[in-house]
């Protein structure tokens, strides 16, 4: 009988109930979309922020300090080097999946003479990976290099390839000084050895590279006769914002208690990731480039806070909206409710009946809203981040709880109304 009463009542006042369902759907779709985006956005925002540079730099032990003091273009002859062959190991650490990209750098001052020019000029040359295909020790494949790490580079002409033996890219400023354009040939000379190369592209990076020659790593290794050597590696990683534990660990990991150490090691703090890189790459020092790493986490936190606020506001709006609608619909049904009370229904059973109806209608709205929200999330993903938003199952329970909460809060005024309804007054029309 209970369900008979509920379904009969639901079939009545259909347009009003539809309105309640739609109001719930609106609020839920917004929350679903925002929550989905929020839970997935960590990666998206990080991907955006990654363009501001690497957040971990790996250098050979012993060089790190010197480099910082004297700049990075010392002749590498006397310096310790990292082994290019080791770099794949970066993708094998505990937080491997948080390493979004990395690229090695080998730098040397070489003489550059455009073909047809009389004089050679000393220029900084940088050997690096463009889009290097790596066969990882784990058996997986990965691609790393400048192509994605410096995705904002504006290259006139074409990017060089890692396997090229005689193509280079020239920075915009340098090209202008030397009158070099795409397709020209240049001679690169380093202590007697020389390579004749074609200029594949002119790079506008907005940074130091504008005055440099960019060549495939192997080509530079050959030119300066340092096969397999790498001067430093830049790593982009998704990191968790530092907290007190991370700061303590960054000072001295060995000072932590075993349990703290475990927690720290298994959290994607930039210091933990650096530590793990040092573990796998022999003779290396991995240092966080703090500012960028920290602000990434901070910006992410702020974005998420903003989204949470929007969600909360939209839910409050929904609660107010349905409070209005439900109250109106209960008022309309006052005679019916009064009658039920006159027939012996207790307050509790009347409230139960009406609440059941509302929860059913609200759940329908919730399901509709959830589906609409998934769509909305994709639209937000496509327009804001230019990518899809992953489906996050955790959103379902969160949204369910929110819907229920909003419906129940929205029902409070009408429940008070139901409780205050006196059958005598309703039935005699006072």
């Amino acid at each position: 009988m209970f369900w008979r009463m509920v379904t009969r009542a639901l079939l009545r006042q259909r347009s009003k109930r539809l309105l309640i369902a739609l109001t719930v759907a609106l609020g839920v779709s917004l929350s679903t979309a925002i929550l989905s985006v929020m839970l997935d956005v960590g990666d998206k925002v990080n991907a955006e922020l990654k363009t501001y540079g690497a957040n971990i730099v790996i250098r050979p032990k012993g060089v790190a300090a010197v480099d910082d003091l004297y700049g990075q273009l010392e002749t590498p002859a006397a310096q310790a080097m990292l082994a290019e062959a080791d770099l794949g190991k970066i993708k094998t650490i505990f937080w491997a999946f948080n390493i979004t990209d990395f690229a090695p750098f080998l730098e040397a001052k070489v003489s550059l003479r455009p073909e047809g020019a009389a004089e050679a000029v000393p220029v900084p040359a940088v050997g690096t990976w463009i889009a290097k295909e790596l066969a990882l020790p784990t058996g997986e494949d990965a691609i790393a290099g400048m192509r994605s790490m410096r995705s904002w580079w504006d290259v006139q002409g074409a990017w060089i390839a890692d396997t090229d033996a005689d193509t280079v890219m020239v920075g915009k400023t340098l090209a202008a000084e030397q009158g070099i354009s795409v397709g020209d040939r240049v001679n690169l000379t380093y202590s007697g050895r020389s390579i004749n190369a074609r200029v594949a592209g002119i790079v506008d990076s907005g940074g130091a590279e504008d005055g440099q020659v960019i060549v495939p790593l192997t080509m530079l290794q050959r030119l300066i006769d340092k096969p397999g050597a790498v001067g430093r590696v830049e790593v982009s990683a998704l990191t968790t914002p530092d907290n007190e534990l991370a700061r303590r660990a960054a000072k001295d990991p060995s000072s932590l208690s075993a349990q703290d150490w475990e927690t720290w090691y298994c959290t994607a703090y930039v210091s933990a990731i650096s530590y793990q890189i040092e573990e796998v790459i022999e003779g290396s020092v991995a240092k966080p480039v703090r500012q960028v790493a920290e602000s990434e986490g901070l910006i992410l936190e702020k974005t998420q806070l903003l989204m949470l606020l929007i969600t909360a506001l939209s839910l409050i709006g929904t609660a107010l909206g349905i409070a209005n609608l439900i109250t109106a619909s209960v008022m309309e049904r006052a005679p019916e409710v009064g009658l039920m009370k006159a027939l012996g229904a207790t307050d509790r059973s009347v409230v139960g009946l009406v609440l059941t109806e509302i929860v059913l209608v609200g759940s329908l709205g919730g399901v509709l809203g959830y589906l609409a929200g998934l769509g909305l999330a994709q639209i937000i993903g496509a327009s804001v981040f230019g990518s899809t938003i992953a489906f996050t199952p955790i959103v379902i329970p969160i949204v369910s709880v929110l819907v229920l909460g909003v419906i129940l809060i929205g029902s409070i005024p009408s429940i008070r109304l139901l409780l205050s309804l006196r059958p005598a007054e309703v039935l005699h029309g006072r």
Partner: protein
Amino acid sequence: MNLLELRGVTKSYGDVHALRDVDLCVEPGEWLSIVGPSGSGKSTMMNIVGCMDSPTAGSVVLDGVDIASMNASGLAHARRNTIGLIFQKFHLVAHLSAVENVMVAQYYHSMPDQAEALAALARVGLGERASHLPSQLSGGEQQRVCIARALINYPKLVLADEPTGNLDEANELLVLDFFRQLHADGTTLIVVTHDPEVAALGDRQIVLNHGRIVRQIDNRANARVPVALTPPGGLS
């Protein structure tokens, strides 16, 4: 023992005194008519007796229980177990069919039983109309659904507030016939009416004015001693 006993019952709404110091006893099986001008407190009294309202002062003992000081859930309990209500406006749930309207009363009383509800409708001559919505029934038919609903749980006390006020003569006669039957079966009846002929059907009439019982007329006494007095309501 009396089924219903009102002692010094007063109901005030601010300055308005709907009932003042009313004493009344109703025996089991009695048919009591309440008459009086509009605003004299008839419905107020029915609401209090029907456990839908509490008096400002005084005691109301219904079936051995004092309901004057009961809380809402106690009143709901007394209401569904002791009282059957019939209204002037029929008050059916609009989206439930005739038989479902009867079953609602069963549901809140104990257990819905469709066969029994259908039988009750058949008794009031609506066996064929059981699946119709109230909007598809005439006023008289709706009132008969109300009667079927009021009687479905075999209440000890049936309260009817102007049950024939909105009915034509034919339906009025039908309804009154049910009352006679109920009375014959031993159900206690309290009927509020403006109609002297309906009032005269009761064993006893009380006349309310300004919230007080100003006169009592015992129709049984009159019937037994027809020559002693000319009864004001007459006999039918």
